C-alpha cells in the first residue's frame, strides 16, 4: 500500500485517485456485462441504457486527468507516487476505451436482433465475453491487492481469448457462407467479437501498468502472439455443415 506522507491531505488525494479508478472499473465491467446480456437476450432497452452510461466513464477519465495534473503540479511527486499518478492516468484511459467498446457492442444490438438468430450464434460470443470480463476483473482485483506476483495469468488468459476469437471468426464465416441472409448479423457479431477481444487487450495493458506502478519495472516483454484470424480464409468449395 501507499507510504504515509507528512501531509495527510496528499495521501487523501492519492487514495481518491485509486478510488475513482475502481469506480470507473466497476462501471466498465458492468457496461460490458450488460452489453453482452442485451445482445444475447435481444434486449434493446438494456442496450440503450449501456449507451447512456458511457458518459459516466468519459467524465471519470476527465476528472482523473484533472486531479492527477493538479497533484503533480502541487506536490511534485517522486518515485512510487509519481508512478501511481501516471499509472492512474493510463488506467483511466484504458477503462474509458473499454467503455467505448462496450458501447459499440450495445449499438449493434438492434441490427443483430433484427432477424432473430439461433442461440448457438451467441453462445460463442458469450463465452468470449466471459473470458474477457474475467480477465478485466482479475486485473482490477490485482489493482486492489497490489499482489503483482499473480499477474502472470494475464498472458495465459490473453492466449485463451485469442484462440477463442480465432475460432469464433471461423464459425461466423461458415454461417455467412451457408446463407447470404446471415451476412448482416454475422458481420455485426464479428465486430462485437473484435470489440470484446480488444477489451482483453486493454485489460492486459492495465495489468502492465499495474506491474509498473508496483515494481517500477516494465513487465518482461514476451507479448503473446495475437490472434490468427489474419490467416483464415475459407475456400468456397468447403463443404457446408
Amino acid at each position, binding site marked *: 500500500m501507499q507510504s504515509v506522507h507528512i501531509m495527510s491531505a496528499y495521501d487523501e488525494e492519492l487514495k481518491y485517485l485509486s478510488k475513482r479508478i*475502481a469506480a470507473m472499473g466497476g462501471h466498465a465491467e458492468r457496461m460490458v456485462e450488460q452489453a453482452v446480456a442485451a445482445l444475447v437476450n435481444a434486449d434493446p432497452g438494456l442496450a440503450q441504457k449501456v449507451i447512456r452510461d458511457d458518459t459516466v466513464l468519459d467524465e471519470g477519465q476527465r476528472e482523473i486527468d484533472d486531479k492527477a495534473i493538479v497533484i503533480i503540479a502541487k506536490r511534485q511527486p517522486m518515485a512510487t507516487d509519481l508512478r501511481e499518478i501516471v499509472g492512474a492516468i493510463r488506467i483511466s484511459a484504458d477503462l474509458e476505451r473499454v467503455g467505448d467498446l462496450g458501447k459499440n457492442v450495445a449499438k449493434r444490438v438492434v441490427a443483430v436482433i433484427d432477424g432473430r438468430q439461433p442461440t448457438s450464434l451467441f453462445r460463442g460470443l458469450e463465452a468470449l465475453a466471459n473470458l474477457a470480463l474475467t480477465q478485466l*476483473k482479475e486485473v482490477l482485483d490485482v489493482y*486492489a*491487492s497490489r499482489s503483482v506476483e499473480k499477474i502472470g495469468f494475464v498472458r495465459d488468459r490473453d492466449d*485463451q481469448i485469442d484462440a477463442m476469437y480465432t475460432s469464433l471468426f471461423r464459425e461466423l464465416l461458415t454461417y455467412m457462407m451457408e446463407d447470404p441472409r446471415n451476412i448482416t448479423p454475422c458481420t455485426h457479431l464479428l465486430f462485437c467479437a473484435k470489440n470484446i477481444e480488444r477489451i482483453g487487450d486493454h485489460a492486459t495493458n492495465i495489468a502492465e501498468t499495474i506491474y509498473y506502478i508496483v515494481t517500477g519495472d516494465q513487465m518482461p516483454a514476451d507479448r503473446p502472439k495475437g490472434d490468427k484470424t489474419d490467416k483464415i480464409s475459407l475456400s468456397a468449395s468447403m463443404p457446408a455443415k
Partner: protein
Amino acid sequence: MADRGAEDKDAAQTIATRLWNGRWLILAGFVAVLAVYFLGGISAYVLAPALAILFGAALLPAGGARQSADAAAAIEAIGLQRLSGEYLAAAVADPLIIFDHAATIVHANAAAFAAFGGIAPGISLPLKFRAPEMQALLDSVLSGAVASDVVDYTEKLPVERAYRVSASSVGHGTDLYVLVFKDQSEARRIDRMRADFIANASHELRTPLASIAGFIETLRGPARNDPAAREQFLQIMQNQTGRMARLIDDLLSLSRLEMKPYLKPGTEVDLRQTVDGVIDSLAPLARENNVAIERNFAKGPLNVPGDRDELFQVFENLLENACKYGQSGGRVLVSISRDDEDVEPGIDVTIRDFGPGIPEEHIPRITERFYRIDVETSRTQKGTGLGLSIVKHILTRHNARLTIKSEVGKGAAFSVHLPAH
C-alpha cells in the same frame, strides 16, 4: 406484619400488572364470548364459567418473555464485554467484513475469504467491490447520510452469485462499520434454472421427439403390416428415448451444480483412490471399445481439497470421452503428478488418448454447452453435448484449471490442475 403487608401489596400489584398487560386479550375474549351468548349459542350457565376462566387465564404469569429479556440484558452486560469481535465475526456463517471510516478492511471472517478471496486487512473496500451499487452503498454509509443501508449485489464471474448486502455502523463512536452479505444466489438460480432448462431442453429434445413422432406416424400408416420395418423403427425409437433420458440427466446435474456455486471448505479428496474408482467403473466400456487404460501415478499421498463425488464425475466424463472418441488409438494413459512449479502448487491429473485428436479451432470452444465438433460422431457415441460443460463447471468451483492439448492425428490430452490449497 409489616413484611406481610408489603408482600400482599406486591402480590396485588403483580395481579394488577398482569391484568393491565392482558387487558386487550381479556377485552377481546369477553366480546367474543358475549357475542356468542347474545347470538343464542350457549346458556348463561356456560357463559359465567367461560368469562371466569378468561379472567383467570390473564392472571397467570404471562410476562415470561419480558423477564427473560431482562435477564438476557443482565448477562449481556457482563458477558459481551469480554467477547472479542473476531470470535463473533467467525461465528457468523455469512460473509462479514469490518471496515473503518476510510473504507479500509479491518477484519474479514472466514466465510468472506471463502466467498471473495484476496481481501486481506488493509485493502480498500471500494477497490475490491467495484460495482456501482456497492460504491453507492459504501458512500452513503461512510458519509453518515444513513446509519445503515441495504442493496442487492450480483457477481457474474467466475460463478454467478447474488447477495443482499447490508452496511451499518458498529456501536457509537467506534469509527467501525460492518458489511454483511446474505447469499440470495439460490433463489435467483432457481428462477434462472427454470428459464435455462426450458430453453436448453426444448431445443435439444425437439430433434429426438420429432423423429419419434415421425416413426409413430409411419407405424400407424404405411408400415402398419410390415413386421421387419416395425422392429427396426421401434429400435430407433428406443435409441431416441434413451438419448432424451440421458440429456435430461445431464441437464439436471448441470443445474444442480449451478445451484451451489462454491464448495464447502474443509473436505479432502484422495485423488489416487478416486481415479482408481473411475477406471474400475469404466472398465466395461473400455473393453467394449478395445481400449487399454494405463496408469502412471506419482508416489506418496495425492490429496487435494474438494468434493469427492464431483471430482469423480469430472474424471469419469474425461475418461469416458477418451475411451469413446480416442477409440482408434487403442490405449488411454491416465497420469497423476505433483506440480510444485506452478503459481498455485497442486496436482495434475492428465488423461491422454491416442485417437484422431481435436482440430485447433475447436479446442477453445468444446466446453460450451451443446458444442459438438462433429454432430454425427457425437450422436453415435451417445453424447449429450454437456459432458465437458459439466467438467468445466465443477473445476471452476474447485478453483482448478482444465488445459487441453491436442494435435490432429496424434490424440488429445485433457489435463486438470487442482490447487493443493
